[in-house]
């Protein structure tokens, strides 16, 4: 029996990879089989398994090998499925399956006949085993048919339907076994109707090789000719429940032949806690009233598959129509968004790169979009009420809800993904949706699927599909919206406005009609702009709908597009820069403040493409621009002032964008806003001083402006100071007053108000608006009040003559950093603070929610820091800063505040500052109270980077952070509570 061993190169050509091992083993199988291994996905495994099979039962194997076609089938099968090879090793008598190939997969009835035959009226465990063996024998034939087809992608749906029919046939026969084995009186069992409704992939006849079978059970009593039940329904349900349990045991309980699959009845009404079997009325009553929306989505695939056919049909007639009313129910949008999240979330991190089913570009993504379209349009159009994904896609295209070309494309992608899934599952007969990582397994997968020549090529092809499928939702769901409002030359269908509005509401637009109107305006016409918008808008709409206010986002986007018209860069950005366009939709759907400013600076949209454009401009650059502007408009004061104000708006917009997309922190924001404000004042001041002479003039920044902590919409606290040089004091004062008047007039901006607030000046509102440095000095020397010293802690140079400003600050140093501060003054600070707390808070405002004056918020932290500065800055130079957080850090370094306490104060200061800016961004109005109204709170939460639905979390975080800060504040500021103090 010796024959020349084949050359290793021959084995390599056949596809073996362990060549010497194969060379050693190949002699053990008949020579005629050698060429067959070329058809095996994994020739090495096929060879090993063939040898083991022959060891197990040479007669059975050799009979198969005797026929060349059967032999080819066997090698192909065991080369693709170790799982089925295991079955054949266990049951060699089933090898005859390969001698009787399928011409077409069996349908339910044919499969049922085969399985029933095998069971042969049995009712015991022997019958279970027979059923399972017969099922696996048929599964072997089906797999063999699948593997023999020349185009796995083309026959995917036939295979999937065959798998579902085989499973339903097994369930049907299992019910018969359970009925025969029932311990209830035979006539009662006979009088009980029982039916299995398949859900999910079984229901849709698109089953995998290995999957749980999702079912719902229904049962009741048979009626006699008059329609009277021959058995109480309660009793019938009791018997049917037993039947259901026993049917599950027939297929799933431990026996000599392993279980087929899990029967999962958890999609039933009330899930795990609900009754296993219900009557029709009970099902209907449940769905009529209480079903949650996702349960309807599951019902979309419901189909009676086993047991009493009449009962199953009645179920379908009564329940299925409900599926198609769900899109009209309250909460549909939320539930859809929830489903979408479930589609993309919950993938373990180590699986992300190999998931075929979940995640962006996975099978679930396709199924989700198609089901959503079915639910939205199936409401009024029966033609799209199909169960299987592929049928539904075809029907949606047929009825004009999606484009034909797209439908064909996605049908191919979906089939391809499913073929991959099938082949992976077939290999070990395991329920998995993960691409293999092992190169050998990938190579086998490429060979068995026929999709690529090598493992690497397969991965590449898969990645391409994933990318396409990722865009599916936009292309199938949003793109057709455009057809409702604009004739799309390349489309063969058109949605009606009602259909389009239904889709938009499902996507979360509160005013779908308005939205459709904007879509029409954006896309109609023959301009190049409209053409490009038609391509881009679908994805923009999808992104807008993820934001907290999609309606406003779309409106703002329309305005922006109107303004920018055909600007090449804008259309290019939308088209080519995914990052820029995504950011644009994010900012527009979350900020009215930005929306308003964009109207003036549509070109700012370009910055979103590039983080460096969003970085705040340096103070030097701003000053340079100011100088250039002034030079350009020499002689025209009003035009120059306008140009300066415009520059400010532009830079504020830049910061707003940067803040929303997270390019800068709230501390950088405060510094930059303060610089922009100072730059404007400086420029305007140059204009205001045009006709004056003989005096120096400067603007001192105070308050949060002085601290470099301005937020959007903050007032700028300032002081004006002058110093005569050649002019007489009286004349200088007059000129200075004129400068201030002019400064205020020229800086006034209705679009983006800039409130110059000089309220911190000596004598407050009663004092002169501007003073000479000498006058300040004299005043402070004579009258200096503690609150004024405190206010001066924040004084810094804003604009004007630098020497004068520095002299002012020098003078201020003596006041604000006193060598020692009398105890009475400290008490005075505390007393004023206590009074401010009770008096300044607006009537009716909740102190816990006031961002500025509330419990543990900005003013608590700032007053505490300022008190520490007044007391210790003389000795601790690092405390001589106008910045709250810098001073706080210095206080920690000097052991004046513990690090833990400082952290709490800092956290509160930051969350209040951020919330305040976010509130202005959200509403385009300045507000000081954390909103209680839900949509506003949600909007603020989203701007603070909370996930959707984060309103409650922000609320709790804010209240906790500020409460804890208040505890620190009370102890450090007011001092330890006196033991006799009662609250």
């Amino acid at each position, binding site marked *: 029996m010796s024959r020349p061993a084949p050359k290793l190169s021959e084995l390599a050509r056949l596809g073996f990879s362990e060549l010497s091992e194969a060379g050693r083993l190949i002699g053990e199988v008949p020579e005629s089989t050698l060429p067959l291994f070329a058809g095996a996905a994994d020739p090495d495994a096929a060879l090993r398994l063939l040898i083991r099979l022959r060891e197990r039962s040479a007669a059975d194997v050799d009979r198969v090998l005797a026929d060349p076609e059967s032999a080819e089938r066997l090698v192909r099968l065991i080369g693709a499925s170790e799982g089925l090879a295991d079955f054949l090793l266990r049951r060699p008598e089933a090898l005859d399956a390969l001698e009787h190939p399928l011409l077409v997969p069996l349908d339910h009835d044919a499969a049922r006949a085969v399985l029933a035959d095998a069971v042969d009226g049995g009712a015991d465990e022997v019958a279970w085993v027979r059923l399972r063996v017969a099922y696996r024998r048929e599964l072997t034939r089906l797999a063999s048919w699948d593997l023999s087809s020349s185009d796995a992608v083309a026959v995917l749906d036939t295979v999937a339907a065959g798998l579902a029919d085989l499973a339903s046939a097994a369930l049907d026969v299992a019910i018969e076994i359970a009925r025969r084995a029932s311990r209830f009186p035979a006539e009662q069992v006979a009088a009980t109707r029982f039916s299995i409704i398949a859900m999910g992939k079984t229901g849709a006849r698109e089953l995998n090789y290995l999957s749980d079978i999702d079912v719902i059970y229904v049962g009741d009593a048979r009626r006699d000719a008059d329609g009277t039940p021959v058995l109480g329904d309660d009793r019938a349900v009791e018997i049917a429940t037993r039947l259901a349990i026993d049917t599950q045991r027939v297929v799933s309980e431990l026996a000599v032949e392993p279980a087929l699959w899990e029967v999962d009845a958890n999609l039933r009404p009330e899930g795990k806690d609900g009754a296993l079997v219900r009557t029709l009325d009970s099902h209907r009553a449940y769905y009529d009233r209480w079903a949650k929306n996702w349960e309807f989505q599951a019902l979309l695939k419901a189909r009676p598959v086993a047991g009493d056919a009449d009962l199953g049909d009645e179920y379908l007639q009564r329940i299925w129509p409900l599926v198609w009313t769900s899109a009209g129910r309250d909460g549909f949008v939320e539930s859809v968004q929830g489903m979408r999240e479930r589609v993309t979330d919950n993938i373990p991190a180590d699986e992300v790169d190999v998931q075929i089913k979940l995640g962006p570009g996975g099978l679930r993504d396709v199924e989700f979009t198609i089901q959503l379209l079915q639910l939205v349009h199936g409401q009024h159009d029966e033609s799209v009420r199909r169960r299987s994904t592929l049928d539904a896609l075809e029907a949606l295209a047929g009825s004009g809800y999606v484009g034909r070309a797209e439908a064909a494309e996605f049908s191919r992608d979906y089939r391809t993904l499913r073929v991959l899934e099938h082949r992976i599952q077939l290999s070990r007969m395991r329920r998995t949706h993960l691409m293999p990582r092992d190169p050998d397994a990938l190579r086998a997968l490429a060979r068995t699927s026929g999709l690529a020549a090598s493992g690497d090529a397969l991965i590449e092809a898969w990645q391409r599909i994933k990318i396409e499928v990722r865009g599916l939702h936009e292309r199938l769901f949003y793109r057709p919206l455009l057809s409702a409002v604009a004739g799309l030359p390349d489309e063969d269908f058109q949605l009606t406005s009602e259909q389009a509005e239904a889709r938009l509401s499902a996507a979360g637009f509160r005013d779908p009609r308005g939205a459709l109107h904007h879509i029409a305006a954006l896309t109609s016409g023959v301009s190049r702009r409209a053409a490009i918008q038609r391509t881009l808008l679908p994805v923009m709409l999808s992104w807008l709908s993820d934001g907290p206010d999609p309606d406003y986002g779309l409106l703002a986007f329309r305005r922006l597009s109107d303004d920018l018209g055909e600007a090449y860069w804008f259309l290019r950005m939308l088209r080519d820069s995914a990052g820029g366009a995504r950011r644009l939709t994010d900012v527009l759907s979350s900020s009215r403040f930005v929306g308003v400013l964009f109207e003036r600076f549509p070109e700012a949209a370009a910055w979103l493409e590039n983080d460096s454009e969003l970085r705040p401009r340096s103070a030097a650059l701003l000053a340079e621009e100011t100088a250039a502007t002034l030079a350009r408009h020499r002689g025209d004061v009003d035009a120059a002032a306008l140009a300066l104000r415009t520059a400010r708006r532009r830079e504020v917009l830049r910061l707003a964008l940067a803040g929303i997309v997270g390019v800068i922190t709230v501390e950088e924001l405060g510094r930059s806003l303060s610089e922009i404000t100072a730059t404007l004042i400086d420029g305007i001041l140059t204009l205001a001083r045009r006709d004056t002479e003989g005096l120096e003039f400067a603007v001192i920044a105070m308050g949060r402006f002085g601290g470099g902590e301005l937020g959007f919409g903050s007032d700028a606290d300032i002081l004006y100071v002058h110093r005569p040089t050649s002019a007489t004091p009286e004349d200088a004062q007059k000129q200075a007053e004129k400068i201030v008047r002019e400064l205020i007039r020229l800086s006034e901006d209705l679009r983006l108000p800039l409130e110059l607030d000089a309220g911190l000046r000596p004598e407050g509102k009663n004092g002169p608006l501007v003073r000479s440095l000498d006058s300040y000095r004299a005043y402070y020397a004579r009258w200096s009040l503690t609150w004024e010293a405190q206010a001066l802690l924040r004084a810094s140079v804003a604009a004007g003559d630098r020497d004068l400003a520095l002299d002012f600050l020098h003078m201020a140093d003596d006041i604000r950093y006193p060598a020692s501060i009398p105890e009475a003054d400290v008490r005075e600070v505390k007393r004023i603070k206590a009074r401010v707390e009770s008096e300044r808070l607006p009537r009716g405002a909740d102190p816990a929610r006031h961002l500025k004056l509330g419990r543990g918020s900005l003013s608590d932290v700032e007053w505490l820091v300022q008190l520490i500065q007044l007391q210790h800055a003389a000795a601790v130079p690092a405390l001589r800063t106008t910045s709250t957080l810098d001073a706080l850090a210095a206080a920690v370094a000097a052991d004046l505040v513990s690090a833990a306490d400082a952290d709490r104060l800092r956290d509160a200061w930051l969350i209040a500052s951020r919330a305040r800016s976010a509130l202005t961004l959200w509403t385009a109005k300045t507000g000081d109270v954390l909103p209680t109204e839900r949509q506003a709170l949600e909007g603020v939460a989203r701007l603070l980077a909370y996930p959707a639905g984060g309103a409650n979390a922000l*609320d709790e975080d804010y209240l906790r952070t500020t409460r804890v800060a208040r505890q620190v504040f009370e102890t450090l500021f007011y001092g330890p509570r006196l033991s006799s103090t009662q609250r």
Partner: protein
Amino acid sequence: MDKQRDFVLRTIEERGVKFVRLWFTDVVGTLKSVALAPAEVEGAFTEGVGFDGSAIEGLTRTSEADVLAIPDPTTFQILPWRGDVDPTARMFCDITTPDGQPAMADPRNVLKRTLAKAADRGFTFYTHPEIEFYLLKSSQMENGQPVPVDRAGYFDNVPGGTAHDFRRRSVRMLEDLGISVEFSHHEAGPGQNEIDLRYADALTTADNIMTFRTVVKEVAIEQGCYATFMPKPFSGQPGSGMHTHVSLFEGDSNAFYDASGEYQLSRIGRQFVAGLLQHAPEITAITNQFINSYKRLWGGDEAPSYLTWGHNNRSALVRVPIYKPGKGQSARVEYRALDSAANPYLAYSLILAAGLKGIEEGYELPAEADGDVWNMSDGERRALGYAPLPASLDRALRLMEESELVAETLGEHVFNFVLANKRRDVAEYRAQVTPYELASNLEIL
């Protein structure tokens, strides 16, 4: 749940229910009620009933309807005291915001949240309260004192006495409402009674306590007397506590039970008790929430005033009771500070949170208290490390205000509402000139 809703709607129909009362509880533990006509109930299940959120904040009205009450169908019961004339039913409600988020200020939600936290760690929390109260002749006082219905004492059988009939009738009604009663007897004070509810999960128990208070008040009215849950109505007599036995279960097994542990108390049980002792001072403003509560806590008569535990020691704050051998499932510990006027939702939340904290942080249980802590001298107690519970509501509030455990468990909203409410109580009380002051000061000063 949904089957329950069907059951509710069907029962309303079949029993001819005329009114359905939706019950919820404000932060102080006062029962609030909205009456619905039967036709409105179905809508209430799906859409809820809107009302002004300040109703649960224990504050005055501040805004328009801004929260929704969603009835919990599993709590549906026909109220027995209405008889067959105009049958009336009740359900407890969960409170939500208009966008469907649980309202942060709803005490029932606080307990649900805390129970969910325990469930995340694999625990279910069971409680079994012993509720004491006084029966008075009426709510009117005579000579400035309330008048009890009898002069009997502990376990006394009072022939033909009001109290006996009263308990029989109350127990009957509670059973009609599906609330199982374990035990009932006359307590030590004149007119004082105790009724023990069977153990159940904490949410059910809290709901039951709210119902219980209503039943007892209703029966009292029926019998021409008056029932009060005031913690200490008589200065010379024992106060009304609500000792509560608590236990944690992991699945079907009692997590407090360990056959080999001291007193068969498991390590988890010991840590739970240690948590209770450690955090008892800061939760006292909730477990003992009235000015009057502190007159009970510091009034002797078995009320616990010190942070101690003991095996069968009735002066201890936490008692590890004896149970019959082989009854491992009934392993439990008794928290004795709680009084009958507490808001059961919040009190149980905090007892659970304190115990869980003990388990999480692995607190060590201090030595068992030996002997009557009350009879020790201050020096002895200090030597043994028995710290006192707060002596007044004011003190308790200050401890609570600094407690992260309490803030985190109650949520920022409830935490603030309770503090605001109770601070107002303290301020108003301080403004009073009491009969005691007049009696002891007026004539000599």
